[in-house]
């Protein structure tokens, strides 16, 4: 039975998934187990995305189905799911830029791969990144930007992190439509990623390496 939920969700069969989840819930199964299977399935979706079998629509759809399962089991949850987290990542679109499609995909990918992600939203001032680093003691910061105005904004954000003597405490990655190695060098980040999966590999490399 458990296998069915995982494969149905990995194959994005929404109606089937919800029917199985409802059936399992009605039979008195621990809702945390149902959620655990759903998360496993979404991790498979993430893998298929990284293998280019799936694209952003499939990621978004799986996220929506997962959300529906969470809503379904929520009333029966007695305690929060304890998910083992690999590390803490702060992410946000830098000041002066309000684009979030790419950032949201990266947040989703990091989340399903086991990272605790603090998504600060869009048009985020440097100070908010600094404050959040101090607050949650994050290991990784991801700066997102779509427009070329974000180049100088990222540079300024990283400078603020330096000014607060936090630069050696965090690894910084950047991502967004027009970024490349040249921009990474210009803004002073540790790495840039072209695809959402790159953020996962980088975070694993950095946090796993500690």
């Amino acid at each position, binding site marked *: 039975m458990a296998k069915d939920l995982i494969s149905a969700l990995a194959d*994005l069969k*929404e109606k089937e998934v919800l029917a199985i989840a409802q059936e399992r819930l009605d039979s008195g199964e621990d809702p945390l187990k149902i959620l655990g299977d759903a998360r496993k399935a979404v991790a498979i979706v993430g893998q298929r995305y990284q293998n280019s079998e*799936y*694209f*952003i*629509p499939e990621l*978004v*759809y799986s996220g*929506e189905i997962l959300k529906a399962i969470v809503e379904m089991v929520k009333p029966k949850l007695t305690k929060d799911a304890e998910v083992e987290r690999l590390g803490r990542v702060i992410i946000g679109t830098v*000041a*002066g*830029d*309000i*684009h*979030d*499609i790419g950032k949201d995909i990266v947040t989703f990918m990091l989340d399903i791969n086991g990272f605790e992600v603090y998504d600060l939203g869009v*048009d985020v001032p440097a100070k908010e990144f600094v404050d959040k680093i101090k607050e949650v003691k994050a290991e990784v910061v991801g700066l997102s930007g779509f*427009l*070329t*105005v974000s*180049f*100088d904004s990222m540079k300024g954000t990283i400078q603020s992190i330096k000014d607060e003597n936090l630069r050696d405490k965090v690894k910084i990655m950047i991502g967004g*439509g*027009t*970024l*490349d*190695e*040249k*921009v990474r*060098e*210009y803004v002073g980040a540790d790495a840039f990623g072209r*695809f959402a999966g790159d953020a996962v590999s980088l975070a694993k490399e950095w946090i796993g390496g500690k």
Partner: protein
Amino acid sequence: MGKAPEELYEERKRRIDEAIRLRKPDRVPISPGESGWCLKYAGVSWKEGLYNPEKGLEAHKKTIIELNWDAFGLPWGTGVVFPARGYDKLDVQQLRWPGAEKEANRIDANTTYQFVEPGTRGKYEPMPAEDYDLFLDDPSDYLIRRWWPRIARGLEPLKDLSPLHFVNGVYGFPSLFANPSFSEVLKTLLEASEEFAKSAALLGPFVMDMVKSGFPPMGLAFTSSPYDYFADTMRGTKGCMLDMFRRPEKLKEAIDKVTPYCTEMALTGARQMKDLSKIVFIPVHKGAGGFMSNKQYEEFWWPSMKKVMEDIIDEGFIPYLYTEGIYTERLSIIKDIPKGKAIYHIETDIFKAKEILGDTVCLAGGPPASLLNAGSPQEVKDYCKKLIDVVGEGGGFIMDVEVPLITAKVENVRAMTEFTQEYGVYK
């Protein structure tokens, strides 16, 4: 002795026409997408450009004349394209821009205006999926009474109007027009339309002034892709992605419904341009690589776009498909279009595009934003050399940029321009 502006106009126009026909012009034409960079070049702030369109237009004129580009497009970054004063009156929710009256619509003074996705908290909600039928049943009524009130707070009272198709005779007028919400909207619209009219009145004289100075317009008429009609605004990026799974037939029906509208918009604008330009600008977004699979692209995105472009071509005009993002995996799909009748802007990968599309469409592309913002003039020239050698080989190429200049370093844009004008000469 210098050439007369009329002669230069003909020369520039021919240069671009030859490139479109996939032939070798005298040299590679250059016309970079700028999206407000002209303001930077001329030292005009974003706010000034939007709120004082005359200044914005002067900045455009100065830039194009001084850099001696081969054409000019819509003056992005000015109140002619984004009439901020009118948008303030309507309290529009789909944009945020520098200097906006309302704090919620404002964005940092040093950045460009930006679009707001539907569903963004505190802004506007997307069209609900259940509303497809209402839209399909009567698109105009849907837009006026249900959609406009969402995207412009100043038009909210429109939602209290009775359906417009109730009024098929004079006896319908009183119930429609006696509605207090209608007079409220009229006041708002009157103020907004005065502002829009002021801005719009500037475009014609600007175009004629540029033409007189020797520069042909390029792509002032425009339209959108039928899929993006919904994905850019109404259902949003995410909404359309989910519709591909949950209600694929409804999405297709809606796309089919608006396909002729997209053609009509293109032709209406293009005909207004008379013989000044045949080029129709079609900026496209949500079919880019990653945003869907090739299979989804061929099912949902491409067929309607192809139809719009073919209809534009049949009427004697030139579609200028402006793709953004990674298009590498789509190149062989979009090759299915009549030869020598269209321009495709390709951000990535323009070199691969030359291999696959070089014998079919005129390509526009150029140096990446990273080089133009963070590189040196020499690096920019080196890249342009490669572009002219490879993509410019045999003609059919317009020097542009990967993404609009916006913030690019002036010395780099100058380097790119001068290098193309010297090295880009065909022997």
